[in-house]
């Protein structure tokens, strides 16, 4: 982590040398260190003639380095293409898809988020630049985006059911192939649109003119949201056309309605947190891709081994049967898009309403239920839904449930008998899908109120499942993985320098940012010989200082909070008026004249000693002021000044000084004990 000093141009050297040197520096890039990254960017800038070699080294480094170091390296890439530009965008752009996607498959969910953010900025011009062109041309970025969307869809749909199974295996299986380019979805295309011949509904199709709805676009505060909106409106147009072609298809109608509601919700401008949005997006793109979304792994039949309630699958099968008989065509003929859509949309709305998790099983299960619904029931739902002025997903769920369309509990074997690609394990060290799941489940509320079963895996949101363990010998022996979870998975956000973990909440991120800053500052100071060379041990605190000490973590506390805490530590000493004074006496200091280490306060005649103030880099007398050319205790001076008015303050107001001074222990402590208003129970004998 040693910070490299900026180097001059290496122009004289050959490409190979430059690249090698650059590679060496890259290996030192362990954390997201702005200084190092800008340093390396400068090197890249000064060696544009070797851009090809440097790009190659950088690409290789991103490919080779361990997952935890990929992000800094990617940030470097980002920095170079934005700050240097052309030769690098060309060279790095060639392999960008591979570079990005290979890294993406190997990192955890937080890094992924950062990478997605970075990718987004590549579609835009460099901030502050005159050049209106995006960082990378769209044809470079778009394949990555598409791959990400597909990968996520597959990941979410496939891994939820599988995730629990490896929780007990010693070595986590991996899913390297998960993000392999998804199978092209051209073959199933015929299923997707306008296949009235497959519809088993009685009414003949009535072709009608296509109706385009124009969606008002909001100004882009959030690209992702806009993207979803665009996709939704695209879908609406599509479904509208389908619906118009077949007015009596209630499924299409309901689907269209739901989409319009979703659009309304999205346009309402309320905040949707990124994870939910992502899920919506996945869902929508799943819809848009029609049958390709069907290509998801089937959930394992049979409950996962640790699933506690055996009644679960039975219920599910009970449910499935009554749903089946309703004049259903053989599964092969079922138009899969229609089969999927209504349930999926419900899931979307549920997500938006934040009331429920759209477990895939549930979504699948809803579909036949809707199919089996009577016309009257459906229109009832629709009317209710339409009647609600501000539509809300939970309402839809509720009304569906009321009308018996959505069974109270459901789970169903996969509706589609198609074999599914089962992800293989190979080289991944971590469990990316589990991470993704966890991050999702920690964002979403733990369980729904509608009684819809959520999949057990989601019932492990680490933050909420804190077991109560009684203090008995019997409770000692049993292994509780949830305890390990609280120490590891529940805090996925890890500092790469010291291993400390943080929650994936906003607060956790803030803390981590501060913590990293602290590391940075500390390392800078350690590297600075002027500061670190003369270090010496401090004296231990006195009893009273220690008792009053407010322990806080300097690495996650801002300076203001720290001083507030320090003030709190002193508040028992000070009267309220004193606490409000903008600078308390004990914070005052006088620089020690050269050679003077001791001084006697001419007010109280106690000895004062100089101390080295690190932040001032000076020897000072703390709690001191100059009075008539002499150094005295600031507290003594303050007392002198108000001795007329505030006689009641007396000895208890005597400030302890930060400097250890003679006889501090006993006498001062007694004084405080008397004057501290009973705040101190320290009994000194």
């Amino acid at each position, binding site marked *: 982590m040693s910070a490299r000093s900026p180097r001059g141009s290496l122009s004289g050297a050959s490409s190979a040398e430059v690249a090698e040197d650059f590679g060496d520096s890259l290996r030192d890039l362990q954390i997201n260190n702005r200084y190092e990254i800008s340093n390396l960017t400068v090197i890249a800038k000064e060696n544009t003639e070797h851009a090809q070699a440097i790009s190659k080294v950088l690409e290789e480094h991103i490919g080779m380095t361990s997952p935890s170091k990929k992000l800094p390296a990617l940030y470097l890439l980002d920095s170079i293409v934005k700050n240097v530009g052309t030769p690098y965008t060309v060279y790095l752009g060639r392999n960008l898809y591979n570079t990005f996607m290979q890294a993406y498959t190997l990192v955890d969910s937080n890094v992924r988020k950062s990478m997605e953010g970075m990718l987004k900025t590549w579609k835009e011009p460099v901030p502050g630049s005159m050049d209106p062109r995006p960082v990378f041309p769209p044809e470079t970025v778009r394949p990555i985006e598409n791959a990400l969307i597909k990968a996520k869809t597959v990941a979410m749909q496939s891994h939820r059911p599988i995730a629990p199974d490896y929780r007990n295996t010693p070595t986590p299986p991996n899913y390297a192939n998960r993000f392999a380019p998804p199978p092209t979805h051209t073959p199933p295309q015929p299923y997707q649109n306008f296949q009235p011949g497959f519809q088993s509904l009685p009414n003949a199709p009535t072709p009608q003119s296509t109706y385009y709805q124009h969606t008002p676009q909001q100004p882009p505060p959030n690209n992702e949201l806009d993207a979803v909106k665009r996709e939704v409106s695209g879908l609406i147009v599509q479904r509208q056309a389908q619906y118009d072609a077949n007015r009596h298809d209630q499924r299409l109608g309901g689907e269209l309605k739901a989409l319009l509601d979703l659009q309304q919700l999205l346009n309402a401008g309320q905040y949707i947190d990124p994870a939910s949005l992502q899920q919506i997006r996945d869902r929508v793109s799943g819809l848009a891709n029609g049958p390709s979304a069907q290509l998801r792994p089937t959930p394992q039949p049979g409950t996962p081994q640790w699933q506690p309630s055996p009644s679960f699958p039975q219920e599910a099968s009970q449910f499935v049967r009554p749903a089946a008989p309703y004049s259903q065509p053989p599964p092969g003929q079922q138009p899969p898009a229609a089969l999927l859509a209504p349930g999926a949309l419900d899931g979307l709305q549920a997500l938006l309403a934040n009331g429920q998790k759209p477990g895939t099983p549930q979504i699948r299960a809803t579909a036949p239920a809707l199919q089996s619904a009577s016309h009257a029931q459906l229109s009832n739902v629709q009317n209710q839904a339409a009647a609600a002025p501000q539509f809300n997903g939970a309402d839809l769920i509720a009304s569906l449930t009321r009308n018996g369309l959505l069974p109270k509990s459901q789970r169903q074997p996969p509706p589609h008998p198609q074999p599914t690609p089962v992800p293989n394990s190979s080289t991944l060290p971590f469990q990316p899908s589990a991470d993704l799941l966890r991050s999702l489940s920690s964002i979403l509320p733990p369980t729904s109120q509608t009684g819809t079963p959520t999949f057990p895996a989601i019932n492990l949101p680490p933050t909420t499942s804190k077991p109560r363990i009684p203090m008995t010998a019997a409770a000692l022996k049993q292994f509780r993985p949830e305890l390990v979870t609280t120490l590891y998975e529940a805090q996925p956000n890890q500092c790469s320098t010291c291993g400390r973990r943080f929650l994936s909440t906003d607060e956790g991120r803030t803390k981590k940012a501060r913590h990293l800053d602290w590391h940075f500052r500390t390392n800078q100071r350690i590297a600075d010989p002027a500061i670190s060379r003369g270090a010496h041990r401090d004296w231990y605190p*006195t*009893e009273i200082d220690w008792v009053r000490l407010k322990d806080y*973590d300097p690495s996650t506390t801002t300076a203001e909070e720290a001083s507030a805490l320090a003030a709190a530590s002193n508040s028992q000493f000070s009267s309220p008026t004193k606490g409000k004074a903008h600078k308390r006496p004990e914070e005052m200091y006088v620089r020690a004249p050269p050679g003077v280490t001791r001084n006697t306060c001419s007010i109280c005649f106690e000895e004062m000693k100089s101390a080295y103030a690190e932040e001032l880099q000076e020897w000072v007398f703390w709690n001191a002021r100059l009075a008539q050319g002499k150094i005295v205790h600031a507290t003594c001076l303050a007392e002198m000044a108000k001795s007329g008015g505030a006689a009641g303050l007396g000895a208890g107001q005597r400030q302890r000084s930060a400097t250890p001074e003679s006889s501090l222990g006993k006498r001062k402590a007694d004084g405080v004990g008397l004057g501290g208003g009973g705040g101190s129970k320290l009994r000194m004998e």
Partner: protein
Amino acid sequence: MSLPGLSLPGLGLSQPSSSHSALGPGTSSNSQSTRTEELGARTEWRFEVNFHQQYHVRLLSGNAEIFGVELALNQRYSFSGAKGVIFTWHGCQLELSGDAESEYAGLETEYAVEWLNVHGMLESARDLAHGTNDGGPRVLVVGPESVGKSSLVRSLAGWSVKCGRTPAIVNVDPREGLLAPPGSFTAVTVGSQLDVENGYGIAPISGPTVTPIKTPLIYHCPYSSPTERPDVYKALITRTALSVLNRMEEDKVSKESGLMIDTPGLLNDPKSNYDMIAHLVSEFSITLILTLGSERLYNDLNRRFGPKQAASAEGEGIPVLRVSKPGGAVERDAGFLKQLANQQIRQYFFGTSKEPLNPHSHICGFAELSVYRANSATLAAAASSYTKDEDEDDSPYTAPKASADDFEKMTPTNAMLGRLVAIKYCDGDSDDFTIRDSAVMGFLYVSEVDEQKKRVRFLAPHPQRWGDKALVWGGCPEAVTDLVG
């Protein structure tokens, strides 16, 4: 790179790796190249490194922790003079380099499950205490020597900190310092990241530190065993408890997090009917006793403090749990302990390689100093027979009554050479009780006594003089001869 599982202790694949050139010559003949080790879930890597060896560990993948403190990925951690255990709940891959006396994978790790469950119990108790004024769990850890008491306390502390707690850690084992040299009691609240390499990190220094500093309160216990002066020992416990409990009243977060006490193995004296344990239990209002190793101890304590028996006497009774001793807990012989003490003293003055410190030399005339010698059976015996033989006394415990000659004022002599002297937060002419109960400001090392010129040269951790304070020395820690020069 060796195959996983093939690396046995002493089976050196002696390909000199280039990264080793920095290690310096002649460390050990047992030099091994860098190797990787694959550990399954819930297994551990045990290593013993003596004081002139350097052992490096790097976590390549997975998760691993050392006494409750998680290792960061791809950071190199170095150990010297340590018997350590790297545990993994999920499985991990380690890269090891440097030398060790022994290193092997431990598969019998049921103890870790128990320890983690203890942590779960403490967390439950803390949650229950939240919003009440009862305070969190107050845990006493007892057991014979070398059964992993300190490791247990450290693990519990590490996990607690990870869960956002600020537990108080109390060490009443004077032979092994905590954030202080030996011969001291420590009370410290831990609210920030612990250190992988040296446990609790470092007490305040004037410069930057790798891990956030911990500010301990130190008392001076110049006896190597509680049995030497039970009365003084008890008084110090009382004093420590007073400060800690006061602190917890001031600091609600800390109170809710509770406290954990690490004790010396010699504390468990059935002959005195566990008098000292009873004293600790009552002074700290202990709510949970953990025993390690000894079954007899567990039964005795359970009979005495456990829920059923005590129900009649003082209401509730205290749960007593017997926790498994870790498979890696090894006997630390006297030589190791002595070296450990030396290392701690050295680090007090000179810091570590990561946080080097500059000690300061002070020369003081005899007249400026108020030196006291803490009397103990050992010292008295040594003084009377004029032999400087510092045997650990196994003499039957005779209750020396509290007497006025606990601390004997003396003029500095050559006997102080190499000793550690505690600066007390009390005047030089204080009475015995004040001297006994005062906290420690710092420690001085006596590097030279000139009886002719009547002056003493001290090595001090701080550039500042300490003024007229009582200076106390005693039988513990033993003299260190090679600290300076």
